[in-house]
């Protein structure tokens, strides 16, 4: 419990930093809305085609917008070696991982909360139902768990903006595929029982990567 409490302190600090600067949220939201608007123009007159590609568009938007915010999460810690400040504090390395994971997850949720209404409006797609919310939450957990680990690895490299996507996308592909397919089923009129296998894939991925990232994070920040 203490570890979770300390992780929440770190996540709260990340949110406070963003509230003070609004650096990431403004750029990520502009980017995400721009992507959706461009796709909307591309499929503007063809509502049928737009409906077919909508699940792919929203998850591509989340993936790329997510990368921008994940990149920033450890850059903050690198300035003035703040990561060392966390490492000399009486908390475990795992608590640092959890803190950054919670912070990134909150961020992804915040981006989605802004982007989804825009997407729903432009593509005339109802994204507000329990199944789609469930898919979004599970996939976001997968994004944040893998993204936090790879962002920690990438931040020490010179070309971190390039390194993170190269590491992140191949690993997160199963989640994106499952999320796109599950969203397509629901948007096509399916119900929860139709997407259990996709949710199972995302859920298994989440568990595996949260546990694996939690265990290996200490080696990444110490070396």
């Amino acid at each position, binding site marked *: 419990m203490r570890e979770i409490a300390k992780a929440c302190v770190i996540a709260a600090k990340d949110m406070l930093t963003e509230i003070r600067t609004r650096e990431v949220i403004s750029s990520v939201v502009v980017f995400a809305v721009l992507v959706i608007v461009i796709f909307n123009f591309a499929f503007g007159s063809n509502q049928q085609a737009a409906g077919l590609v909508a699940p792919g568009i929203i998850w591509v938007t989340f993936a790329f917008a997510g990368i921008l915010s994940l990149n920033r999460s450890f850059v903050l810690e690198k*300035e003035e070696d703040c990561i060392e*400040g966390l490492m000399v504090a009486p908390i475990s390395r795992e608590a640092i991982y959890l803190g950054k994971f919670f912070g990134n997850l909150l961020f992804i949720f915040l981006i989605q909360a802004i982007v989804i209404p825009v997407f729903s409006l432009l593509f005339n797609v109802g994204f507000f139902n329990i199944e789609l919310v469930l898919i979004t939450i599970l996939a976001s957990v997968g994004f944040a768990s893998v993204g936090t680990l790879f962002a920690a690895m990438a931040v020490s490299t010179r070309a971190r903006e390039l390194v993170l996507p190269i590491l992140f996308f191949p690993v997160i592909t199963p989640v994106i595929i499952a999320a796109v397919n599950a969203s397509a089923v629901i948007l096509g009129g399916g119900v929860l029982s139709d997407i259990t296998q996709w949710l199972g894939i995302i859920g298994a991925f989440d568990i595996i990567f949260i546990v694996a990232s939690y265990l290996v994070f200490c080696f990444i920040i*110490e070396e």
Partner: protein
Amino acid sequence: MNIQEPVVMAAETIPAVEIKGLSRNFGTFEALRNLSLAVQPGETLAIFGHNGAGKTTLLKILSTVMKPTGGEVFYGGLSIAADAENIRRRLGVLSHQSFLYSSLTAYDNLVFYSRLYDVADCDTRIKHLLNRLGLRSRMYDKVGTFSRGMSQRLAIARALLHRPEVVLMDEPESGLDTFAMDTLWQLVREDSRTVIFTHHNLERGFQAASRVAIMARGKMFFCPDIKCSPGELEKAYAASLEMA
């Protein structure tokens, strides 16, 4: 001059910090080589050495940021390999970098670290330290607007916030004016803390220390049990430069 001389301790005293056969390699480069040292409670040990002597690596290992390749470090008998979290609670670390978030205010930064260290009545403690360091009037300003010296003063407050028993400092006076240097040593010496610090200036470091040591090429080159004379220190330092 004592070269690699083992430190003689009273049998009943547990050293505040004890280093046994410490080594650290970066690939084939040996940054620390079989280094041993003991620091008694309340001592202020100054470590000098040429660039690349291994001072910062030693402090990084002592602060638990870096793991050694070999050897052990104990704080009051507790091993950093087994009790790192408990040990970190007793440690205050002041580095080249401030560990402060530039987009947060001075107060936000200290509240954040207070929560990590479970500091009781943190508001009073923060205001007390900021008063002592002459930063009270800037407590709600973003750290990004601070000068180098002000950031360093705030870093002192951060390092001492939780009243650590042992303080580790890497070049603590860099960027500080005379007032801040005096305040630093006043604050650090409160509560009979054990202090280990590195310094590039022999004279300043010698004045602040109760004991001195010189590192050269990853080894403890000169480490007398008691404070030597300034002349002895200068002579030993000159000899250490020949080794570099």
